[in-house]
């Protein structure tokens, strides 16, 4: 078939089940995913539409003749006839290659999504800092991520939906809203620490520490004393009583509080002597919002990897 310069040969998304071989001339292909300023060039000898012919997949590109050109078209009928006269093992190899491509495509899709998450959290945190409210435009987030990491908008939306399922944020129209401004930066930092330091982040707490913090939060919420500079203070006596209640008879000791104090999540009213009884300390205090964020992080983090590849 001959085409004149400027003529359209096929459109992205067409279902034509055919293969084009460029015999002479040059074609250029554009698609909605690519950069319109940098079309893909197909010169003489190029083969276009393998998936369209073998799998009846929609056309990946809109093709246009850049100059007068000649194209050989192979359709489904040609393929069937050729395969009929070929040995069966050749069909097996072609089927294997197609199947393997699907697997590698799926693996690439998952890998891209996993890889895009830290950047999404990083850019989200950055955009959040530029705003006074707790909402980020999804379109803007996708634009900035495309610039930084080549992430596509569809992937951004998929990741945001996964984060919404984990109750990290809420999607409302074109905005992603967070309840806490610190949770997403905290999540990013925890991922960064795991990846670059090859260690568990200090933000990831033991079950005992998480339970102790839950007790602390429960008592803070029950307390009638207002927060001072966001800090909540709970007496050791109340902590002891509630620990016994909530943690099935566990006795609060200095040792129970040691890690939380060392990591500066909770602070004692007086210097904690790790060998002395817990009653030496009158009360413990901590940043209410930070503790809430840490508890949320510890709820989300173990679920994150599985959720990403679901």
């Amino acid at each position: 078939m001959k085409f004149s310069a400027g003529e359209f040969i096929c459109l992205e998304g067409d279902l034509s089940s055919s293969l084009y071989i460029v015999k002479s001339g040059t074609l250029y292909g554009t698609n909605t995913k690519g950069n319109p300023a940098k079309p893909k060039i197909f010169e003489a000898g190029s083969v276009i539409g393998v998936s369209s012919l073998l799998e009846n997949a929609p056309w990946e590109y809109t093709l246009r003749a850049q100059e007068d050109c000649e194209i050989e078209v192979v359709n489904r009928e040609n393929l069937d006839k050729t395969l009929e006269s070929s040995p069966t093992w050749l069909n097996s190899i072609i089927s294997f290659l197609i199947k393997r491509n699907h697997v590698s495509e799926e693996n690439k899709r998952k890998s891209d999504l996993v890889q895009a998450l830290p950047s999404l959290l990083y850019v989200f945190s950055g955009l959040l800092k530029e705003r006074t409210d707790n909402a980020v435009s999804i379109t803007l987030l996708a634009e900035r991520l495309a610039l930084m990491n080549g992430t596509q908008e569809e992937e951004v939306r998929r990741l945001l939906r996964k984060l919404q399922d984990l109750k990290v944020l809420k999607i409302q129209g074109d905005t992603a809203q967070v309840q806490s401004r610190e949770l997403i930066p905290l999540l990013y930092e925890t991922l960064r620490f795991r990846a670059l330091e090859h260690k568990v982040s200090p933000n990831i707490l033991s079950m005992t520490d998480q339970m102790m913090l839950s007790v602390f939060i429960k008592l803070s919420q029950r307390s009638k004393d207002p927060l001072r500079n966001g800090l909540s203070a709970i007496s050791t006596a109340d902590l002891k009583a509630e620990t016994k209640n909530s943690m099935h008879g566990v006795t609060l000791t200095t040792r129970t509080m040691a890690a939380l104090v060392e990591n500066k999540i909770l602070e004692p009213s007086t210097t904690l002597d790790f060998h002395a009884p817990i009653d030496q300390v009158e009360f413990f205090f901590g940043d209410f919002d930070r503790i809430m964020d840490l508890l949320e992080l510890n709820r989300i983090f173990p679920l994150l990897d599985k959720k990403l590849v679901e």
Partner: protein
Amino acid sequence: MTTGDSRKTIIPPVRITVKAGFVVFSHNDPERKIVILEKGGLRAVDSSVTPKKELFRMRPGDLVGVAALLEGESFRYDLEATEISDITIVSEDCMESELKNMPLWLLACVRELSGQNRQRRENMRKPRMENSLKSLAEFSRFLKKEKPYPVESLIQEYCWQTRVPVAAAKEDLKALCRRKFLELQKQDDTLCVVAHDPELLKLFVDYLDTQDQGKPWEPLRLSLNQKKALVTLSTIKASEVKDAPSWLAMFQKKGIDLTVADWIYMLGQGFFTEKDESHFSPVPEKVQYFLLALRYEINLRGVL
């Protein structure tokens, strides 16, 4: 029958029956081949460990060795029969003879399918964006103003996010420093990087992005009169509201002759927002953005 035309000579695949335990191929076998299991069972094992570690099992219809034969990859395992099995072995010669008889377009399809898979695997290790300088500028625009970041760990963090090779990222960092968007500083014995005005990096990203799209960047296209109007606008409060003729008159009073085309262009660029019908007030953020671009034009263009 040999015809003398190599295109017509077909070397058939070998069909054999093997007993349980027979090693169909070994990972150090120099001969490349595709093994198709017709009947029975095969398993792939890693013989480099003791005891042998089973990697996977094959069922009738399964095949292995495509990557080895078509893409020259080496076998990473041994393949042995778990029971009496019928197998078809497609050797390199057999494949070559069949490919020679295949129409060229089908050969191209097989190559394309094989190439797509290799390409995808390679892409999984490569950065997804084309312009790594733009990417690093976007990353750096979220750095805290005036905070020193150790270069090594910052680069490591950026490369982890983007898969950009460390050497390329360091080159890009130097390019941003040359343009004075970032500054390298020694803090004790650690080389750190500081962003004095992260807003400039955002501007640079926008500039590079329009360039990548083959479009001109509007802040650097302003005429002299439009630039003068912009400077004047930066001194006017956002609460000032006038209709278009009054704005034009105000500019004229200040010696700036703006045409209606200039006015429409400035409206299009978002220098003004429409308050009510035909009344407009300036948008300070937009005006500042353009002014900053003009002030740092040389840095943006990289012709310091």
